[in-house]
């Protein structure tokens, strides 16, 4: 029992990190990014590749990958998604366009990744078992959890204490009003999108140290991150973290007690419950 709780909690740390990345992209930039999972897998591929070819420590890769992912996502937003934002007349139109465009990007990313590495990204790093509270967990999971917590905390402080962070939150609440108080909305949106992508890629590097991925698995992570964001409530950092813990625990329970092949089905069950009973998110208020 304690087994499940501990490994579930450890898993949810990384999930929370990835969902926070998606939350920035959807909550602030208003882009429904369905290529989010592919960004994660790209991070994992980078870690795998650097480890097998360059014998590089994955945590070092993480430090290198983050700024690269930031620049890459900024370029994607600026040149591919910004035109969609300016051409759409309403939020619904933008949603349809961004969904289709990010589908395209996710397929292109998968295609590129398959041509780099068609098989599994399998490598071993820090898979030393460590005992905590009578349960064994590999060191890589614990490190991943710790790193995810640090980044999450840093993000939280940045959003709540800095001037730019406040601007980001203002755009999340209402892009129109943010414009009125002199916030450069396009710039902040691009920043949030790029930051979200960088966080997701970092999450991918962390996940790759304890889960074996392949090029086409991204959509499952996209699904999970989306479910977490919807469960937590779009734009709600606290809700997202709690939702990630719930998903991590439920998934680990299902994987341990029933079958590891059913984790996606478990995620769907949660999703269905949320849609039926609390579509506004765990802490959201009912829209009037």
């Amino acid at each position, binding site marked *: 029992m304690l087994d499940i709780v501990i490994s579930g909690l450890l898993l949810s740390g990384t999930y929370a990190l990835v969902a926070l990345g998606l939350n920035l992209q959807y909550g602030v930039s208003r882009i*429904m990014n*369905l290529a989010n999972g592919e960004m994660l897998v790209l991070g994992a591929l980078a870690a795998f590749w650097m480890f097998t070819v360059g014998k590089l420590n994955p945590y070092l890769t993480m430090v290198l990958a983050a700024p690269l992912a930031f620049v890459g996502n900024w370029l994607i937003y600026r040149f*591919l998604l910004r*035109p*969609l934002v300016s051409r759409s007349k309403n939020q*619904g*139109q933008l*949603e*349809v*366009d961004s*969904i*289709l*465009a990010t*589908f*395209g*990007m*996710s*397929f*292109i*990313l*998968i*295609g*590129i990744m*398959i*041509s780099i590495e068609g098989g599994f990204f399998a490598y071993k790093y820090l898979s030393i078992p460590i005992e905590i509270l009578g349960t064994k967990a590999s060191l890589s999971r614990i490190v991943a959890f710790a790193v995810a917590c640090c980044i999450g905390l840093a993000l939280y402080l940045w959003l709540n204490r800095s001037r730019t962070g406040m601007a980001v939150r203002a755009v999340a609440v209402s892009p129109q009003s943010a414009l009125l108080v002199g916030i450069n909305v396009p710039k902040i949106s691009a920043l949030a999108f790029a930051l979200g992508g960088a966080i997701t890629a970092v999450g991918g590097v962390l996940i790759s140290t304890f889960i074996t991925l392949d090029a*086409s698995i991204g*959509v*499952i992570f*996209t*699904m999970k991150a*989306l*479910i977490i964001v*919807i469960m937590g409530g779009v734009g709600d950092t606290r809700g997202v973290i709690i939702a990630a813990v719930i998903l991590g625990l439920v998934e680990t329970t299902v994987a341990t007690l029933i*079958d590891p*092949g*059913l984790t*996606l*089905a478990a*995620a*769907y069950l949660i*999703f*269905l419950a949320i*849609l*039926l009973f609390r*579509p506004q998110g765990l802490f959201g208020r009912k829209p009037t």
Partner: protein
Amino acid sequence: MIRGSFTELLIIALLAAFAATVPLIANGYWLSVCVTGMMYIALATSWSMFSGPTHYISLATAAFFGLGGYLLATGMSDYQQPFWLMLAIVPFTGAVLAALIGLATLRLSGVYFVIFTLGLAEMIRNLVSWIQNNFLGSRGLYVLTDYTEKHIYWMLLAVAATVYMLGWLINRSRLGFSLRIIGGDETVARHVGINTATAKVILFITTGFFGALVGGILAPRYSYIEPNQVFSPQLSFLVVIVALLGGSGRLWGPLVGVIPFTILWELVQTYFPNQTTLFLGVVFLVIVYFLPHGVVGRLEQILKQVRKRRS
């Protein structure tokens, strides 16, 4: 969307009559390409009946298709039921699945619907594999019939024609009218007294019905049915591409998209088998950035400009 006229219906009937003669001319490789094309026509037309007016991108096609094929195979292989009986049953299971998904998600915003359908085929595949491995024991299902590609083609043609006819009738009905208002502005639709959720769910049910039916019809083509194969999520994306490439604003849009896409797709699969995913991505981007209303929308735009210049 303009109301379907009788001339349009006549042209389509002529085209269908011509299409019915294809198996008499083509065989082997080309007939198999035509079967695939006809499958896309049936699936994409029923897809755009729902997604065209509402702008909700449904990715559930693979789930319905897989359900149809898998259940038909289970009935025939495990319970020795005849093909036609199973073919009569499976569409209703697709309709029930669609009704459940629709009731859970279509009351809310469209994004939830898209997200829900995104992983649906994959989730059902996991579930089916799990049930099969743990409870049924049998690892594979056989669909053995006397039907060849030729018969499958005619069945698909009949389905495609039915879908088209139904779409034409819906366009002329109150339901079609309310869907167009929903697509224009959902808030307005609600204010003029349209029950938006019911209208959307009804249309989505027809998509589920025909998706499962097509899946059932194609089962004899594979003869050996395996969850990994029939629940391939790629099908959902291919159907979206075919429909949007042609243009989902018109009922006959997918018809225009299907021929160039099927040929291109065959070429890419033959000559660049490792780049198929990359190709799909590029086509998606081309649609979003250069053909937002499909080939049909672009042609209509050009026609309008030509007419303006003349007058």
